[in-house]
Protein backbone atom coordinates (compact mmCIF):
# COMPACT_ATOMS: atom_id res chain seq x y z
CA UNK A 1 0.00 0.00 0.00
CA UNK A 2 2.63 2.52 1.12
CA UNK A 3 4.92 1.88 -1.82
CA UNK A 4 2.12 1.86 -4.34
CA UNK A 5 0.90 5.28 -3.25
CA UNK A 6 4.48 6.56 -3.42
CA UNK A 7 4.78 5.31 -6.98
CA UNK A 8 1.47 6.97 -7.81
CA UNK A 9 2.61 10.31 -6.42
CA UNK A 10 5.90 10.10 -8.35
CA UNK A 11 4.01 9.38 -11.56
CA UNK A 12 1.74 12.36 -11.02
CA UNK A 13 4.64 14.72 -10.34
CA UNK A 14 6.28 13.53 -13.55
CA UNK A 15 3.09 14.20 -15.49
CA UNK A 16 2.83 17.68 -14.04
CA UNK A 17 6.38 18.39 -15.21
CA UNK A 18 5.49 17.09 -18.65
CA UNK A 19 2.49 19.40 -18.81
CA UNK A 20 4.64 22.42 -18.03
CA UNK A 21 7.28 21.33 -20.49
CA UNK A 22 4.46 21.62 -23.01
CA UNK A 23 4.02 25.23 -21.96
CA UNK A 24 7.66 26.02 -22.63
CA UNK A 25 7.80 24.13 -25.91
CA UNK A 26 8.55 26.32 -28.91
CA UNK A 27 6.66 26.16 -32.13
CA UNK A 28 9.01 25.79 -35.05
CA UNK A 29 8.06 27.29 -38.37
CA UNK A 30 8.12 24.53 -40.96
CA UNK A 31 10.57 25.08 -43.79
CA UNK A 32 7.93 25.42 -46.51
CA UNK A 33 4.28 24.72 -46.00
CA UNK A 34 3.62 25.16 -49.71
CA UNK A 35 6.13 22.44 -50.57
CA UNK A 36 4.66 20.20 -47.87
CA UNK A 37 1.13 20.55 -49.28
CA UNK A 38 2.36 20.09 -52.86
CA UNK A 39 4.32 17.01 -51.78
CA UNK A 40 1.31 15.17 -50.37
CA UNK A 41 -0.95 16.40 -53.18
CA UNK A 42 -3.90 17.55 -51.04
CA UNK A 43 -4.90 20.73 -49.30
CA UNK A 44 -6.82 19.68 -46.19
CA UNK A 45 -9.34 22.37 -45.26
CA UNK A 46 -10.74 22.43 -41.72
CA UNK A 47 -14.37 23.52 -41.67
CA UNK A 48 -17.61 23.28 -39.72
CA UNK A 49 -21.12 23.02 -41.12
CA UNK A 50 -21.71 26.75 -41.51
CA UNK A 51 -24.07 27.95 -44.21
CA UNK A 52 -23.58 29.86 -46.45
CA UNK A 53 -19.79 29.53 -46.18
CA UNK A 54 -19.34 25.75 -45.95
CA UNK A 55 -22.25 23.34 -46.03
CA UNK A 56 -23.20 20.02 -47.53
CA UNK A 57 -25.34 19.40 -50.57
CA UNK A 58 -25.63 15.67 -51.06
CA UNK A 59 -22.13 14.38 -50.51
CA UNK A 60 -20.34 17.52 -51.57
CA UNK A 61 -19.24 20.53 -49.56
CA UNK A 62 -20.38 23.74 -51.18
CA UNK A 63 -20.70 27.36 -50.11
CA UNK A 64 -18.73 30.52 -50.72
CA UNK A 65 -15.68 29.42 -48.71
CA UNK A 66 -15.83 25.86 -50.03
CA UNK A 67 -15.91 27.02 -53.66
CA UNK A 68 -13.03 29.43 -53.09
CA UNK A 69 -11.02 26.72 -51.30
CA UNK A 70 -11.51 24.38 -54.25
CA UNK A 71 -10.31 27.10 -56.63
CA UNK A 72 -7.27 27.81 -54.45
CA UNK A 73 -6.34 24.12 -54.34
CA UNK A 74 -6.64 24.00 -58.12
CA UNK A 75 -4.31 26.98 -58.35
CA UNK A 76 -1.80 25.14 -56.16
CA UNK A 77 -2.21 22.06 -58.34
CA UNK A 78 -3.42 19.84 -55.50
CA UNK A 79 -6.65 18.11 -54.52
CA UNK A 80 -8.97 19.82 -52.04
CA UNK A 81 -10.17 17.81 -49.08
CA UNK A 82 -12.65 19.07 -46.49
CA UNK A 83 -12.63 17.86 -42.91
CA UNK A 84 -15.20 18.83 -40.30
CA UNK A 85 -13.43 19.81 -37.12
CA UNK A 86 -14.34 20.83 -33.61
CA UNK A 87 -14.12 24.62 -33.91
CA UNK A 88 -12.52 24.93 -30.47
CA UNK A 89 -9.61 22.77 -31.56
CA UNK A 90 -8.81 24.57 -34.82
CA UNK A 91 -5.36 25.83 -33.80
CA UNK A 92 -4.45 22.39 -32.43
CA UNK A 93 -5.59 20.76 -35.67
CA UNK A 94 -3.35 23.14 -37.62
CA UNK A 95 -0.24 22.64 -35.49
CA UNK A 96 -0.88 18.91 -35.48
CA UNK A 97 -0.91 18.99 -39.32
CA UNK A 98 -4.23 17.16 -39.40
CA UNK A 99 -5.50 20.13 -41.42
CA UNK A 100 -3.60 22.66 -43.55
CA UNK A 101 -5.90 25.64 -43.21
CA UNK A 102 -9.03 26.89 -41.47
CA UNK A 103 -11.40 28.34 -44.04
CA UNK A 104 -14.80 28.68 -42.52
CA UNK A 105 -15.93 32.27 -42.04
CA UNK A 106 -13.35 32.75 -39.34
CA UNK A 107 -13.46 36.14 -37.65
CA UNK A 108 -10.02 37.72 -37.41
CA UNK A 109 -9.93 38.29 -33.65
CA UNK A 110 -6.79 38.98 -31.64
CA UNK A 111 -6.94 35.43 -30.30
CA UNK A 112 -7.04 33.97 -33.81
CA UNK A 113 -4.19 36.21 -35.00
CA UNK A 114 -2.09 35.06 -32.05
CA UNK A 115 -2.77 31.38 -32.67
CA UNK A 116 -2.24 31.20 -36.44
CA UNK A 117 -1.04 32.99 -39.57
CA UNK A 118 -3.95 34.64 -41.38
CA UNK A 119 -4.76 35.82 -44.87
CA UNK A 120 -6.04 39.28 -45.80
CA UNK A 121 -9.66 39.85 -44.82
CA UNK A 122 -12.01 38.85 -47.65
CA UNK A 123 -15.50 39.22 -46.24
CA UNK A 124 -17.32 41.57 -43.86
CA UNK A 125 -19.57 40.27 -41.15
CA UNK A 126 -21.54 41.81 -38.32
CA UNK A 127 -22.47 40.56 -34.89
CA UNK A 128 -26.23 40.62 -34.76
CA UNK A 129 -28.85 40.14 -32.03
CA UNK A 130 -31.29 37.24 -32.49
CA UNK A 131 -34.54 37.28 -30.48
CA UNK A 132 -38.04 35.89 -30.54
CA UNK A 133 -40.27 37.71 -33.05
CA UNK A 134 -42.50 38.98 -30.23
CA UNK A 135 -39.58 40.92 -28.73
CA UNK A 136 -38.14 42.24 -32.00
CA UNK A 137 -40.49 45.24 -32.20
CA UNK A 138 -39.09 46.82 -29.02
CA UNK A 139 -35.48 46.46 -30.19
CA UNK A 140 -34.32 49.47 -32.16
CA UNK A 141 -30.89 50.23 -30.74
CA UNK A 142 -28.18 48.34 -28.86
CA UNK A 143 -29.24 50.08 -25.64
CA UNK A 144 -32.77 48.60 -25.90
CA UNK A 145 -31.30 45.13 -25.36
CA UNK A 146 -29.67 45.94 -22.00
CA UNK A 147 -32.37 44.21 -19.94
CA UNK A 148 -32.22 40.95 -21.90
CA UNK A 149 -30.35 37.84 -20.82
CA UNK A 150 -27.97 36.78 -23.59
CA UNK A 151 -26.34 33.57 -24.72
CA UNK A 152 -23.09 33.87 -26.69
CA UNK A 153 -20.48 31.47 -28.00
CA UNK A 154 -17.49 31.30 -25.64
CA UNK A 155 -14.49 33.14 -27.06
CA UNK A 156 -16.47 34.45 -30.05
CA UNK A 157 -16.74 37.96 -31.41
CA UNK A 158 -20.32 37.87 -30.11
CA UNK A 159 -19.06 37.42 -26.55
CA UNK A 160 -16.78 40.42 -26.95
CA UNK A 161 -19.68 42.47 -28.32
CA UNK A 162 -21.83 41.53 -25.32
CA UNK A 163 -19.06 42.63 -22.96
CA UNK A 164 -18.59 45.94 -24.81
CA UNK A 165 -22.30 46.71 -24.59
CA UNK A 166 -22.57 45.71 -20.93
CA UNK A 167 -25.03 42.86 -21.58
CA UNK A 168 -25.60 40.02 -19.12
CA UNK A 169 -24.41 37.02 -21.12
CA UNK A 170 -23.86 33.32 -20.56
CA UNK A 171 -21.10 31.68 -22.59
CA UNK A 172 -22.17 28.47 -24.34
CA UNK A 173 -20.24 26.08 -26.57
CA UNK A 174 -21.29 27.10 -30.09
CA UNK A 175 -23.32 29.69 -31.99
CA UNK A 176 -25.85 26.98 -32.78
CA UNK A 177 -26.21 26.27 -29.04
CA UNK A 178 -26.74 29.99 -28.44
CA UNK A 179 -29.64 30.01 -30.92
CA UNK A 180 -31.08 26.90 -29.27
CA UNK A 181 -30.97 28.71 -25.91
CA UNK A 182 -33.20 31.44 -27.33
CA UNK A 183 -35.62 28.96 -28.90
CA UNK A 184 -35.85 27.01 -25.62
CA UNK A 185 -36.34 30.18 -23.61
CA UNK A 186 -33.32 29.50 -21.40
CA UNK A 187 -31.93 32.81 -22.69
CA UNK A 188 -33.81 35.76 -24.18
CA UNK A 189 -31.42 36.73 -26.93
CA UNK A 190 -28.16 35.68 -28.53
CA UNK A 191 -25.44 37.34 -30.57
CA UNK A 192 -24.20 35.50 -33.67
CA UNK A 193 -22.68 36.22 -37.09
CA UNK A 194 -25.07 38.04 -39.41
CA UNK A 195 -24.22 35.69 -42.28
CA UNK A 196 -25.14 32.73 -40.12
CA UNK A 197 -28.28 34.39 -38.76
CA UNK A 198 -29.50 35.00 -42.29
CA UNK A 199 -29.25 31.29 -43.03
CA UNK A 200 -30.31 29.85 -39.70
CA UNK A 201 -33.39 31.64 -38.36
CA UNK A 202 -36.71 32.80 -39.75
CA UNK A 203 -39.26 31.19 -42.10
CA UNK A 204 -38.26 27.85 -43.59
CA UNK A 205 -35.78 27.00 -40.81
CA UNK A 206 -36.14 25.07 -37.56
CA UNK A 207 -36.48 28.43 -35.81
CA UNK A 208 -39.42 30.16 -37.56
CA UNK A 209 -40.28 32.17 -34.40
CA UNK A 210 -36.88 33.81 -34.19
CA UNK A 211 -35.63 36.84 -36.04
CA UNK A 212 -32.53 39.05 -36.08
CA UNK A 213 -32.48 42.73 -35.27
CA UNK A 214 -29.74 45.15 -34.21
CA UNK A 215 -26.20 44.79 -35.62
CA UNK A 216 -23.59 45.44 -32.93
CA UNK A 217 -20.09 45.33 -34.43
CA UNK A 218 -18.58 44.96 -37.83
CA UNK A 219 -15.79 42.47 -38.33
CA UNK A 220 -13.82 40.67 -41.02
CA UNK A 221 -13.31 37.08 -42.09
CA UNK A 222 -9.96 35.55 -43.01
CA UNK A 223 -8.33 32.19 -43.70
CA UNK A 224 -5.99 30.67 -41.10
CA UNK A 225 -2.74 28.76 -41.69
CA UNK A 226 0.05 27.36 -39.53
CA UNK A 227 2.28 29.99 -37.95
CA UNK A 228 4.94 31.16 -40.41
CA UNK A 229 3.32 29.36 -43.34
CA UNK A 230 4.31 30.49 -46.85
CA UNK A 231 0.78 29.70 -48.02
CA UNK A 232 -0.29 33.11 -46.67
CA UNK A 233 1.29 35.17 -49.48
CA UNK A 234 0.05 32.54 -51.93
CA UNK A 235 -3.57 32.94 -50.83
CA UNK A 236 -3.36 36.74 -50.79
CA UNK A 237 -2.16 36.64 -54.41
CA UNK A 238 -4.95 34.19 -55.23
CA UNK A 239 -7.57 36.49 -53.68
CA UNK A 240 -6.24 39.45 -55.70
CA UNK A 241 -6.39 37.45 -58.90
CA UNK A 242 -9.85 36.05 -58.21
CA UNK A 243 -11.18 39.49 -57.34
CA UNK A 244 -9.65 41.06 -60.44
CA UNK A 245 -11.04 38.46 -62.87
CA UNK A 246 -14.50 38.52 -61.26
CA UNK A 247 -14.56 34.86 -60.21
CA UNK A 248 -14.70 35.80 -56.54
CA UNK A 249 -17.79 37.96 -56.99
CA UNK A 250 -19.38 35.29 -59.13
CA UNK A 251 -18.98 32.74 -56.34
CA UNK A 252 -20.30 35.29 -53.83
CA UNK A 253 -23.42 35.97 -55.89
CA UNK A 254 -24.15 32.26 -56.00
CA UNK A 255 -24.44 32.18 -52.20
CA UNK A 256 -25.83 35.65 -51.54
CA UNK A 257 -22.74 37.08 -49.87
CA UNK A 258 -21.81 39.61 -52.59
CA UNK A 259 -22.69 42.61 -50.40
CA UNK A 260 -20.12 41.55 -47.81
CA UNK A 261 -17.09 40.90 -50.02
CA UNK A 262 -14.04 43.06 -49.34
CA UNK A 263 -12.25 44.29 -52.50
CA UNK A 264 -8.82 42.62 -52.82
CA UNK A 265 -6.13 44.98 -54.04
Amino acid at each position, binding site marked *: MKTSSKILICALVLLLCAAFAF*AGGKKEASSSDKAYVAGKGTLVVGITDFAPMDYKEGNEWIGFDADMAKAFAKELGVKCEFIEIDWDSKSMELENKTIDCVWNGMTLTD*GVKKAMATSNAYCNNAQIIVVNKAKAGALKTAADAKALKFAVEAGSAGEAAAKDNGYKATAVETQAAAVMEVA*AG*TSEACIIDSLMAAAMVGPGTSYPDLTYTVALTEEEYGVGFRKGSDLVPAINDFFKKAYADGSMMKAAEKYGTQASIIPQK
Partner: protein
Amino acid sequence: MIQEVLLRLCDGFIKTIELFLLTLAGAIPLGLVVSFGSMAKFKPLKFIVRFIVWIVRGTPLMLQLIVIYYGPGLLFHQNIWGMGTSGRFTAVMVAFIINYSCYFSEIYRGGIESISKGQYEAGQVLGLTRRQVFFKIVLLQVIKRIVPPMGNEIITLVKDTSLARVIAVYELIWAGQTFIKSDGIIWPLFTTGVFYLVFSGLLTILLSKFEKKLSYFN
Protein backbone atom coordinates in the same frame (compact mmCIF):
# COMPACT_ATOMS: atom_id res chain seq x y z
CA MET B 1 0.41 33.49 -16.95
CA ILE B 2 0.95 30.08 -15.34
CA GLN B 3 -0.48 31.41 -12.10
CA GLU B 4 -3.56 32.82 -13.81
CA VAL B 5 -4.14 29.56 -15.68
CA LEU B 6 -3.84 27.45 -12.53
CA LEU B 7 -6.20 29.78 -10.70
CA ARG B 8 -8.83 29.51 -13.43
CA LEU B 9 -8.36 25.74 -13.65
CA CYS B 10 -8.86 25.50 -9.88
CA ASP B 11 -12.17 27.37 -10.24
CA GLY B 12 -13.26 24.81 -12.81
CA PHE B 13 -11.99 21.98 -10.64
CA ILE B 14 -14.10 23.14 -7.69
CA LYS B 15 -17.18 22.99 -9.92
CA THR B 16 -16.14 19.49 -11.05
CA ILE B 17 -15.83 18.33 -7.43
CA GLU B 18 -19.22 19.87 -6.58
CA LEU B 19 -20.81 17.96 -9.46
CA PHE B 20 -19.07 14.77 -8.37
CA LEU B 21 -20.00 14.91 -4.67
CA LEU B 22 -23.61 16.00 -5.17
CA THR B 23 -24.18 13.32 -7.82
CA LEU B 24 -22.89 10.63 -5.45
CA ALA B 25 -24.94 12.00 -2.56
CA GLY B 26 -28.07 11.80 -4.71
CA ALA B 27 -27.44 8.68 -6.76
CA ILE B 28 -26.21 6.28 -4.05
CA PRO B 29 -29.51 6.32 -2.11
CA LEU B 30 -31.73 6.80 -5.19
CA GLY B 31 -30.02 3.85 -6.86
CA LEU B 32 -31.12 1.60 -3.99
CA VAL B 33 -34.73 2.74 -4.48
CA VAL B 34 -34.47 2.06 -8.22
CA SER B 35 -32.99 -1.40 -7.58
CA PHE B 36 -35.95 -2.25 -5.30
CA GLY B 37 -38.23 -1.13 -8.12
CA SER B 38 -36.52 -3.33 -10.67
CA MET B 39 -36.82 -6.34 -8.30
CA ALA B 40 -40.43 -5.60 -7.29
CA LYS B 41 -42.91 -8.46 -7.16
CA PHE B 42 -45.59 -6.10 -8.55
CA LYS B 43 -45.08 -6.69 -12.31
CA PRO B 44 -46.18 -3.28 -13.75
CA LEU B 45 -43.82 -1.41 -11.39
CA LYS B 46 -40.96 -3.73 -12.29
CA PHE B 47 -41.68 -3.24 -15.97
CA ILE B 48 -41.79 0.56 -15.74
CA VAL B 49 -38.58 0.77 -13.71
CA ARG B 50 -36.69 -1.56 -16.03
CA PHE B 51 -37.98 0.45 -19.03
CA ILE B 52 -36.62 3.66 -17.52
CA VAL B 53 -33.29 1.99 -16.74
CA TRP B 54 -33.14 0.83 -20.37
CA ILE B 55 -33.73 4.38 -21.68
CA VAL B 56 -31.19 5.93 -19.34
CA ARG B 57 -28.49 3.35 -19.90
CA GLY B 58 -29.22 3.16 -23.61
CA THR B 59 -28.71 6.83 -24.52
CA PRO B 60 -25.61 9.01 -24.14
CA LEU B 61 -25.45 11.14 -21.00
CA MET B 62 -24.61 14.11 -23.21
CA LEU B 63 -27.91 13.74 -25.05
CA GLN B 64 -29.78 13.36 -21.76
CA LEU B 65 -28.29 16.66 -20.56
CA ILE B 66 -29.44 18.46 -23.69
CA VAL B 67 -32.92 16.91 -23.58
CA ILE B 68 -33.42 17.68 -19.89
CA TYR B 69 -32.22 21.27 -20.17
CA TYR B 70 -33.54 22.38 -23.57
CA GLY B 71 -36.36 19.86 -24.04
CA PRO B 72 -39.09 21.54 -21.97
CA GLY B 73 -38.58 24.92 -23.67
CA LEU B 74 -38.26 23.55 -27.20
CA LEU B 75 -41.14 21.07 -27.03
CA PHE B 76 -43.64 22.72 -24.70
CA HIS B 77 -42.51 26.38 -24.82
CA GLN B 78 -42.13 26.21 -21.08
CA ASN B 79 -38.63 26.73 -19.77
CA ILE B 80 -38.66 25.11 -16.32
CA TRP B 81 -35.06 25.90 -15.39
CA GLY B 82 -35.11 29.70 -15.26
CA MET B 83 -32.40 31.80 -16.84
CA GLY B 84 -29.63 31.86 -14.26
CA THR B 85 -26.55 29.72 -13.82
CA SER B 86 -28.27 27.95 -10.92
CA GLY B 87 -30.88 26.56 -13.32
CA ARG B 88 -28.13 25.04 -15.44
CA PHE B 89 -26.49 23.47 -12.43
CA THR B 90 -29.80 22.03 -11.23
CA ALA B 91 -30.47 20.54 -14.67
CA VAL B 92 -27.04 18.90 -14.67
CA MET B 93 -27.64 17.49 -11.19
CA VAL B 94 -31.01 16.04 -12.23
CA ALA B 95 -29.51 14.41 -15.33
CA PHE B 96 -26.44 13.04 -13.53
CA ILE B 97 -28.34 11.70 -10.52
CA ILE B 98 -30.92 9.93 -12.68
CA ASN B 99 -28.22 8.50 -14.94
CA TYR B 100 -25.98 7.25 -12.14
CA SER B 101 -28.90 5.91 -10.06
CA CYS B 102 -29.74 3.61 -12.94
CA TYR B 103 -26.19 2.30 -13.21
CA PHE B 104 -25.89 1.97 -9.42
CA SER B 105 -29.25 0.18 -9.23
CA GLU B 106 -27.98 -2.63 -11.44
CA ILE B 107 -24.89 -3.01 -9.26
CA TYR B 108 -27.09 -3.13 -6.15
CA ARG B 109 -29.40 -5.66 -7.81
CA GLY B 110 -26.46 -7.88 -8.67
CA GLY B 111 -25.19 -7.62 -5.10
CA ILE B 112 -28.54 -8.31 -3.47
CA GLU B 113 -29.35 -11.27 -5.73
CA SER B 114 -25.93 -12.80 -5.04
CA ILE B 115 -26.75 -13.28 -1.35
CA SER B 116 -27.77 -16.89 -0.81
CA LYS B 117 -31.26 -17.80 0.30
CA GLY B 118 -29.81 -19.45 3.40
CA GLN B 119 -28.95 -16.05 4.85
CA TYR B 120 -32.62 -15.00 4.72
CA GLU B 121 -33.76 -18.33 6.15
CA ALA B 122 -31.23 -18.12 8.98
CA GLY B 123 -32.54 -14.66 9.81
CA GLN B 124 -36.11 -15.91 9.89
CA VAL B 125 -35.17 -18.82 12.15
CA LEU B 126 -33.68 -16.30 14.57
CA GLY B 127 -37.04 -14.51 14.59
CA LEU B 128 -35.99 -11.35 12.71
CA THR B 129 -38.50 -9.42 10.60
CA ARG B 130 -37.95 -9.07 6.85
CA ARG B 131 -36.75 -5.52 7.41
CA GLN B 132 -34.26 -6.56 10.04
CA VAL B 133 -32.99 -9.40 7.86
CA PHE B 134 -32.35 -6.98 4.99
CA PHE B 135 -30.67 -4.19 6.92
CA LYS B 136 -28.79 -6.25 9.54
CA ILE B 137 -27.73 -9.30 7.54
CA VAL B 138 -28.08 -8.85 3.77
CA LEU B 139 -27.11 -5.20 3.19
CA LEU B 140 -23.89 -5.63 5.16
CA GLN B 141 -22.71 -8.37 2.85
CA VAL B 142 -23.99 -6.57 -0.24
CA ILE B 143 -21.88 -3.50 0.52
CA LYS B 144 -18.78 -5.69 0.79
CA ARG B 145 -19.42 -7.26 -2.57
CA ILE B 146 -20.28 -4.14 -4.54
CA VAL B 147 -17.32 -1.96 -3.57
CA PRO B 148 -15.18 -2.88 -6.61
CA PRO B 149 -17.89 -2.30 -9.27
CA MET B 150 -19.08 0.85 -7.48
CA GLY B 151 -15.49 2.08 -7.47
CA ASN B 152 -15.45 1.63 -11.21
CA GLU B 153 -18.56 3.76 -11.69
CA ILE B 154 -17.36 6.38 -9.21
CA ILE B 155 -14.13 6.86 -11.12
CA THR B 156 -16.07 7.03 -14.39
CA LEU B 157 -18.18 9.77 -12.82
CA VAL B 158 -15.07 11.88 -12.17
CA LYS B 159 -14.54 12.09 -15.92
CA ASP B 160 -18.23 12.24 -16.90
CA THR B 161 -18.54 15.54 -15.05
CA SER B 162 -16.80 17.07 -18.07
CA LEU B 163 -20.02 16.59 -20.05
CA ALA B 164 -21.70 19.34 -18.03
CA ARG B 165 -20.09 21.92 -20.29
CA VAL B 166 -22.54 21.18 -23.14
CA ILE B 167 -25.16 23.20 -21.27
CA ALA B 168 -22.60 25.79 -20.17
CA VAL B 169 -21.74 24.66 -16.66
CA TYR B 170 -18.17 25.83 -16.36
CA GLU B 171 -16.26 22.80 -15.13
CA LEU B 172 -12.59 21.90 -15.51
CA ILE B 173 -12.41 21.10 -19.25
CA TRP B 174 -14.33 24.27 -20.07
CA ALA B 175 -11.84 26.27 -18.00
CA GLY B 176 -8.97 24.70 -19.95
CA GLN B 177 -10.61 25.28 -23.32
CA THR B 178 -11.28 28.98 -22.79
CA PHE B 179 -7.53 29.63 -23.05
CA ILE B 180 -7.47 28.16 -26.55
CA LYS B 181 -10.24 30.47 -27.66
CA SER B 182 -9.16 33.69 -25.98
CA ASP B 183 -5.35 33.45 -25.88
CA GLY B 184 -4.50 30.77 -28.42
CA ILE B 185 -2.58 28.63 -25.90
CA ILE B 186 -3.28 24.93 -25.66
CA TRP B 187 -1.30 23.65 -22.68
CA PRO B 188 -3.98 24.53 -20.07
CA LEU B 189 -6.31 21.99 -21.69
CA PHE B 190 -3.69 19.25 -21.35
CA THR B 191 -2.95 20.28 -17.80
CA THR B 192 -6.55 19.52 -16.80
CA GLY B 193 -5.57 15.85 -17.21
CA VAL B 194 -3.29 16.18 -14.18
CA PHE B 195 -6.22 17.34 -12.04
CA TYR B 196 -8.34 14.36 -13.10
CA LEU B 197 -5.45 11.95 -12.52
CA VAL B 198 -4.68 13.27 -9.05
CA PHE B 199 -8.34 13.18 -8.10
CA SER B 200 -8.99 9.66 -9.34
CA GLY B 201 -5.66 8.57 -7.83
CA LEU B 202 -6.82 9.76 -4.43
CA LEU B 203 -10.16 8.03 -4.93
CA THR B 204 -8.41 4.78 -5.83
CA ILE B 205 -6.42 4.92 -2.58
CA LEU B 206 -9.55 5.78 -0.59
CA LEU B 207 -11.55 2.96 -2.15
CA SER B 208 -8.88 0.34 -1.49
CA LYS B 209 -8.63 1.54 2.13
CA PHE B 210 -12.40 1.21 2.42
CA GLU B 211 -12.27 -2.26 0.93
CA LYS B 212 -9.62 -3.31 3.47
CA LYS B 213 -11.75 -1.96 6.29
CA LEU B 214 -14.65 -4.11 5.13
CA SER B 215 -12.62 -7.33 5.10
CA TYR B 216 -13.63 -8.15 8.68
CA PHE B 217 -14.99 -11.60 7.86
CA ASN B 218 -11.64 -12.86 6.64
